[in-house]
């Protein structure tokens, strides 16, 4: 469990053997649920139908955790001691939909469907249970939690409701022209009175060109369709009551008078934002579907522009407000791009078949506006307290979101950057900027001083990488020969960077933690006799900013899947009572070609629109190999 090389009574060493710890931890989630759905339909007149549906989903999820003395969180060197918890998380979702639909074909060519109605939805979630610290008898496991001297209870519930009115008209003419228009208004309980309703129209036109006479002559065209659509959609992903200020009396906010049991303090624990409203995304899409040579070649092209207004975000606040964040509608953002997908049947024979499927997406993101006339929005990422105050991401007006933000790394200060006094003291030459620390020594980390004031501080931070890719895509090939089938799938991402925050800790020990294993690169750090320009000396991390040092190209090509199967011919088991027999083997994540130094370039441990591509202590990607057998009767 512990490193026998150190006497804990002499030096506090909190490291544990992670394998032993993982084997001894209990993490169990048990879910029981009830799902009930029903509907009733009534034809008022033959073309007019009333449909009422109702559904309810009840779940009870029980989370159990136990950390015995052989775990990282429960060992005797941890002040919580042996500990565990049991929580019940009930949730109820109900949905009721009521629609009237009218469907009729006029003159055999005008096909109308009209639908109107309203839906109601409600959700209730809760959490009840307790955690126990310093459990005396660990052999009792969860049943011994009640013997703990230190029990911490939790009891809470929350709820939201959604009410929507909707209407839709579908019209088609001879299966050649299609027209759809719809409108919905959604009311959400998550917003204040007066801000609850969002209105979302949409419309689409499509034209099956291949049904036209002039196209019918082109016999190699199997199908061709032009699509144009416009739609608005809403998003209300905020906490259930984020429009209200919140007063709570948590355990942590007490104060003891006269050594008595603490008197609870009533504190402001969250700011409400009464101006919150629906986030709306308006999307225009033009698409073309083309199928050629008896559907041997199928091409789909889509060009789109999505504009998101009133982007909802749990935005940071200056601490002078008294708290650190609140939900806000923070700005306007645009995504536009092109998606191409091509499916081909390359060989279609009696015994051997080969088909391919290829897709590629190009997306360009741009920030169009930020609230309160800001020109930039910086986003911190929480991974280690030391860097919590810094924002590694920035969204700048007119530029894509999710750009990396920090200092430009410039290697390591070398002896020649200094004047040496007769006493052997190294003083930085006048023309060489400091790294932000008041004094600098040879071997310290060096950054670029962009504003030329002789010192590197927050004013010298700039964009040091992009979190979003230029294009992504995949290529899948399917082969079959007699009973065998083979699928090979490749995927890629190009043009995105990753911030490898692991290196903030393990590539130079910038936190100066004791007992902290380092990457092999540490052996080649700057030392008086090893003037490395890649890794600073021990303790030479300076004011340890996010910098281009840890921003890496995250482009990759990955052989994601190979699967090989064999279907036994039916004659083999004619006499047995089953219909088919198949065996297969499938391998996932077989190979990755990338320049990224971390274990997985597909990583994004703090994924959000504003903070893509952050790597810290990600769970490693598993390479899996599956053998299987399918038997159907």
């Amino acid at each position, binding site marked *: 469990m512990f490193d026998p090389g150190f006497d804990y009574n002499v030096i506090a060493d909190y490291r544990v053997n992670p394998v032993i710890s993982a084997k001894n931890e209990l993490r169990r989630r048990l879910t029981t649920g009830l799902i009930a759905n029903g509907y009733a339909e009534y034809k008022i007149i033959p073309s007019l139908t009333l449909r009422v549906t109702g559904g309810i989903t009840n779940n009870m999820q029980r989370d159990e955790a136990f950390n015995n003395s052989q775990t990282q969180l429960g060992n005797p060197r941890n002040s919580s001691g042996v500990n565990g918890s049991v929580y019940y998380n009930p949730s109820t979702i109900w949905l009721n939909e009521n629609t009237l639909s009218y469907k009729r074909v006029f003159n055999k060519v005008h096909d109308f469907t009209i639908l109107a109605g309203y839906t109601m939805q409600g959700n209730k979630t809760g959490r009840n249970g307790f955690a126990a610290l310093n459990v005396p008898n660990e052999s009792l496991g969860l049943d011994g939690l009640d013997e703990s001297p230190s029990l911490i209870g939790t009891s809470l519930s929350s709820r939201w409701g959604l009410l929507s009115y909707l209407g839709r008209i579908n019209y088609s003419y001879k299966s050649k022209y299609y027209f759809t228009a719809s409108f919905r208004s959604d009311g959400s309980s998550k917003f204040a009175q007066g801000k609850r309703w969002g209105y979302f129209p949409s419309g689409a036109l499509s034209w099956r060109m291949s049904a036209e006479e002039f196209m019918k002559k082109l016999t190699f065209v199997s199908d061709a369709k032009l699509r144009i659509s416009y739609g608005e959609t809403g998003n209300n992903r905020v906490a259930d009551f984020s429009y209200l200020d919140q007063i709570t009396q948590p355990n942590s906010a007490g104060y003891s008078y006269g050594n008595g049991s603490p008197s609870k*303090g009533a504190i402001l624990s969250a700011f409400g934002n009464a101006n919150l409203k629906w986030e709306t995304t308006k999307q225009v899409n033009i698409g073309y579907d083309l199928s050629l040579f008896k559907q041997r070649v199928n091409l789909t092209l889509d060009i789109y522009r999505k504009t998101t207004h009133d982007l909802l975000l749990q935005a940071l606040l200056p601490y002078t407000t008294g708290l650190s964040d609140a939900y806000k509608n923070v700005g306007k953002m645009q995504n536009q791009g092109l998606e191409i997908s091509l499916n081909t049947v390359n060989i279609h024979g009696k015994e051997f078949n080969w088909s391919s499927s290829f897709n590629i997406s190009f997306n360009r993101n741009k920030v169009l506006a930020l609230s309160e006339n800001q020109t930039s929005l910086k986003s911190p990422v929480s991974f280690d307290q030391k860097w919590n105050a810094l924002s590694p991401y920035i969204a700048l007006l007119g530029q894509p979101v999710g750009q990396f933000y920090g200092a430009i790394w410039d290697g390591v200060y070398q002896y020649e950057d200094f004047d040496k006094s007769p006493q052997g003291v190294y003083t930085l030459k006048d023309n060489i900027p400091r790294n932000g620390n008041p004094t600098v020594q040879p071997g310290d980390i060096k950054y670029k001083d962009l504003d030329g004031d002789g010192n590197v501080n927050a004013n010298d931070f700039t964009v040091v990488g992009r979190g979003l890719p230029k294009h992504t895509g995949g290529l899948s090939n399917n082969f079959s020969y007699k009973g065998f089938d083979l699928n090979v799938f490749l995927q890629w991402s190009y043009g995105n960077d990753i911030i490898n925050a692991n290196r903030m800790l393990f590539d130079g020990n910038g936190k100066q933690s004791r007992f902290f294993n380092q990457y092999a690169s540490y052996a080649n750090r700057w030392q008086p006799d090893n003037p490395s320009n890649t890794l600073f000396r021990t303790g030479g991390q300076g004011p340890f900013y996010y910098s281009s040092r840890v921003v890496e190209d995250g482009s990759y090509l990955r052989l994601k899947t190979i699967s090989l199967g064999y279907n036994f011919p039916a004659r083999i088991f004619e006499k047995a009572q089953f219909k088919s027999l198949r065996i297969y083997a499938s391998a996932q994540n077989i190979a990755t070609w990338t320049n990224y130094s971390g274990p997985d370039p597909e990583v994004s441990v703090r994924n959000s629109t504003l903070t893509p591509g952050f790597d810290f202590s990600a769970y490693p990607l598993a390479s899996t190999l599956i053998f299987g057998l399918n038997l159907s009767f």
Partner: protein
Amino acid sequence: MKLIKYFYLTMLVAAATSCQKVLDTNPTDFINPDAYYKTPEQLQSALNGIYNSLGTQEVYGNNYLYMFNTNTDESYGRTVELTTSYQYDAADPKNELFWKGLYMGIERANLLLSKVDNVTMDQTAKDVIKGQTLFLRGFQYFMLVSNYGDVPLILTPTKSVTEVNVARTPMKDVYAQITKDMIDAEALLQMQTATVLGLGGKVTRTAVQGMLARVYLYMAGFPLKDTEKYKDALLWANKVVNPTGNAPEHALNADYRDVFIKYAREQYDVKESMWELEFWGNNTGGVNLGNTYTGRFCGITCNDANKGFSSGSVNATRKLYNSYEINPLSTITPNKTSFDWRRDWNCANYTWGTGAVAKKTNVTNTWLMNAGKWRREYEVVNPKDKNYTSQNFAFLRYSDVLLMLAEAENEVNGPANAYQYVNVVRKRAYGILYGNVIKHIAVTSGGSGYTSAPEVTINGGGGSGATAEATISGGSVTGIIITSPGTLTVGGPYYTSTPTVTLTGGGGTGASAVATITESDDADLSALQISSKSELLAAIKEERSRELCFEGLRRNDLIRWGKFVEDMKSFLAYANANAGTATNITTAATKVSARNIFMPIPIHDIQLNNLLIQNSGY
């Protein structure tokens, strides 16, 4: 059939209109402020929340005291940390938390102040709540302005999360608001006294008066240098020490050590400890209201959970140790004993070792003595938590007020009437504030044949409670250390004549010793020290360190006296000249520069509040 159709349609319309209720959800896990602050109990709960914010880890629970006040000329950190050694920058998380913690408390106070006048309740009770709240807001702004200079001055609760840009208000205006809040509070708290309450954990009339003296001294000093304010400091300090109309509320404990033992024992000394921050419990049951500074970080190294774990992270400097007057006749080596009982209390000459079972281990190197002010071995809350102690922390002690009074009086009227207050503090330090005690025991004959230290008995002389230990070497008694000079209480009994000392046991014979007792002016400042304003000021500067070391005051004292960086550099020179060349002793003094007069505005706020301008040098 038609009827049924209409029935359905009617039902549908009826349902559609009533279903608006789906949207009328009510929260059950919190209360809306509009529904709160209606009763006296609710106002009190809101006030509890403000006291709470001062005691969080971010503020006085550890962060401010350890992270920002460990390295001065009186103490240094056992390990070099960027934050503790003046190498913090605007991105420093500890600095950010400190700022955050204070503004969080200010918001709580602003919210309460915006509601308190609307509540119908007993006026006296309301005044007490409002007075405490006003004072606490002022105190938190005082923490901000004295550490950051100009700061955003926000006096109403945050109304909008979208209008958050607030510029820094000039220091003098921030100070003006602080003194206004505190003076208003003093008027409202006339009936709230420590004697009536019997505890030190609440703001009282005299706590406000004493703190006002501190605020005015800071205003009179660097960087504001509004020297007129010495008069105000004098006025308010006098209200505590020499009140007109009331009997004085406060007096010094006869025994300096007992002041701190009482914190560990969860006892109150409302005469001396004028305002303290209460910490509670041992971090069980999810109630984490202990602190990690007093006794835990700033304590005597100990790995034994029963005695009370301490990392011993703060050491006294040799400069501090040597500033206490030694007994020139002492034969104890290598460190002569001191007449001043504060020395061996503040500079612990032992640790509890590094083993899991405490073992008292002597420390004689005066660079390596732990700050011993708060000692976990006296704690009474069991079991002791490893990281959190329930020892209260004093914001304001009476000795501080006496020294502030002396300083203000000296500045305004010169030394003639000022030095007496320093002498009161010094007398208590020597144990002679209320009578005379044993001063020295000289060995008149070492005797021979001693295999262990003989027992020392002190009899007669009119006093009681004096104890001493003998040291032996080569079979004879070489010296005697007084472990208690007498019964240090207000009533004594004290010594009026020389008692008899007898040495018994130890296997030897022939040793004898004689005691001398103190005289009432033993502790007084010398004639030179009181000869001029500047001499007395110099004496007060040293006395404050001797008396108030490790209490989070030294750095700001040095700053307000206007020579912080120079003082730190002279300490560096002192350390280098006096074998204090270890990097943990010298790093902070090496790294400190003019920018450290103020702490940096956290980058978090700089990024989110467009009107903030950074302090120079960061």
